[in-house]
């Protein structure tokens, strides 16, 4: 079982398992893995669950998943970095996702994004230094009928303008402005 991890990683294993033992979320994750009968092809489902539980995928978590599914750590890391949906860095307390699909783009989503970028002084894909706000872009959230759309903390909001967006992220920027 341990052979699936390289020698270097093997030394980390006891540490990871100990790390996992004190955390309830690992138990939930393990139950989820069990539900999928430890099947290796359930890797993406397991990563979804892990990200839902932990918010992001840190190294130890990926190694834990590799160990439980008996997969090489490289494969787990490869899959986690291939898909845009998975993030290896912690997200901010609030998220602001600007849809950059074609319909939103031709209706001025780029201007909305630029306004938020200027105000928060971070670029798309980054988090403010105080960890308050993550600014992200989406390929297309399929809300083209109400473009341009922005998702604030999981709520899709229709017909955004730079002013409306700035109003919304006000107070999330951590500087109170």
């Amino acid at each position, binding site marked *: 079982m341990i052979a699936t991890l390289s020698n270097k990683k093997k030394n980390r294993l006891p540490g990871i398992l100990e790390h996992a033992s004190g955390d309830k979320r690992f138990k939930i994750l393990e139950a989820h893995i069990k539900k999928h009968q430890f099947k290796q092809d359930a890797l993406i489902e397991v990563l979804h669950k892990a990200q839902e539980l932990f918010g992001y995928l840190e190294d130890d978590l990926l190694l834990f998943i590799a160990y439980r599914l008996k997969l090489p750590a490289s494969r787990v890391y490869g899959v986690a970095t*291939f898909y845009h949906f998975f993030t290896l860095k912690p997200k901010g307390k609030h998220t602001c996702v600007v849809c*950059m699909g*074609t319909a939103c783009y*031709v209706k001025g989503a780029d201007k909305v994004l630029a306004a938020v970028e200027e105000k928060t002084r971070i670029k798309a894909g980054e988090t403010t230094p105080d960890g308050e706000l993550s600014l992200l872009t989406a390929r*297309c959230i*399929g809300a083209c*009928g109400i473009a341009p*759309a922005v998702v604030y903390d999981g709520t899709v909001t229709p017909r955004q303008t730079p002013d409306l967006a700035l109003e919304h992220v006000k107070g999330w920027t951590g500087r109170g402005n």
Partner: protein
Amino acid sequence: MVIDDLVEIAEKERASRKKYVIRCCMAAGCMSSDSKGVKEALDKAVKEAGLESEVEVRGVGCMKLCCQGPLVQMDSHGQGATVEISAEGHGPLYQKVTPEDAASLVGTLKGGKTKVQQGDPKDPFFTEQMSIVLANSGIVDPERIESYIAADGYQALHDVLREMTPKEVLDTMIKSGLRGRGGAGYPTGLKWATVAKTASQQKYVICNADEGDPGAFMDRSVLESDPHSVLEGMAIAAYAVGATQGFIYVRAEYPLAISRLQTAIKQAKQQGLLGSGIFESPFNFNIDLRIGAGAFVCGEETALMASVEGKRGAPRPRPPFPAESGLWGSPTLINNVETFANVAPIIRKGAEWFASIGTEKSKGTKVFALAGKITNTGLIEVPMGTTLRQIVEKMGGGAPDGGKIKAVQTGGPSGGCIPAEALDTPVDYDSLTKLGSIMGSGGMIVMDETTRMVDVARFFMEFCMDESCGKCIPCRAGTVQMHNLLTKILARKATARDLKKLEDLCEMVKNTSLCGLGQTAPNPVLSTLRFFRNEYAELLQEDVHGGPNSNGNGNGKKEALAPMI
């Protein structure tokens, strides 16, 4: 479950229908404008007016005119109804409804008046539509299987399992002339027949719901509004090809579609419409959901299968085609959501009926998502062969605020821009291909005079550059170089030689890439070059090396020719 049980459920559902049904759109578009609040307010208003025995407030799927959401429509049945009903049997359609409007809307049932904006049912946006795939959308409750059964749901599955051989189903599909709705337009019946004749113990059916094209939301709407029609279509396909396991690969960006599918699968299993011995026949079929993780390339069938297997979504060369060797090496049938949604109506109404709609080579209807600079944004379903002008100008109402339509983009990053001069083109697979675009999955983005075409080309190239999986070099490196060249053109630093280089690169990437993503990535550039070449030319600089546009005075700057890496 036998047919009597099915009929009983349908009859019970129809009998329990109340005098008035207030349908409230609960699809993602309207939900983002608080249609959930509207539905709750309507429920409360009905209760307060003491009309619970007469009025049902039903959450339904997409009612098509997304730009005017949240939408609420009233229906009435039986005698003495006070609501005016159109010839199609539907009452007034209220637009931009807020929770505060609920009381006055319920009041209209008792002769009251309301100030809420009403849609015109005679608007071409509605009258020109022909619904096959969207027939149940906005009518049935997507979260209750009984509602779908009452609309003749699962009838086709019963007929197929009890009265038809797999061969007969295949013949019906071939005769119907249905072509894949995912974009490429491969004849569905032939694809099914190939999987059916490949001998194997284990076969799979996959529904491709990884609707990655930016600007397309047809599949999302079908899944949110009528998930059971997709399940039924998949089950019929599985019977025809001899599969026992199905997967629906759906994007993680569509949480509502995912939850409705989960509900639908659970209900179908409870009713014995999925599982083992369906309709007391020897046919077993199960469907599992697979959630994507945000990779556009996974819409490509071989990449999608890799992703279902829990791997990185990298495509592989074909042949072998999935029909021969697909998921875990077994023969696999992959069809798009809309293709599966067409199956049950074809079985119910016959191949001849379906083949009578549309053009000679493209049968049936197609759902399009109208978006961009257009007055009526939303979903439309029209017979194949309808002209773009009819769709964009008549149904869509043209560009808003008196603007002029410049181009229509179809097919997303794999498609092209069709100029306003070509709006009289009938929409079918072959006509659009001739114009250098593709039918695609059905996204239609309208652009007006303010849109710069080179900008659009770069937007799509940036998309392809980011989404290239990196497996083959033409796509991985070529898209980056094309993007750099487009950026250089936009910065007014490029010369005619750069444009030539861009065109050569387009041809190379198109001809040598491994999968559809790379092969079609140059399309937006090629089609804008074909129809809007002057916009590129305006941005070019003179060439200091004596190119075709050079006047030899060395006007151009040296760095303009520096390698653009």
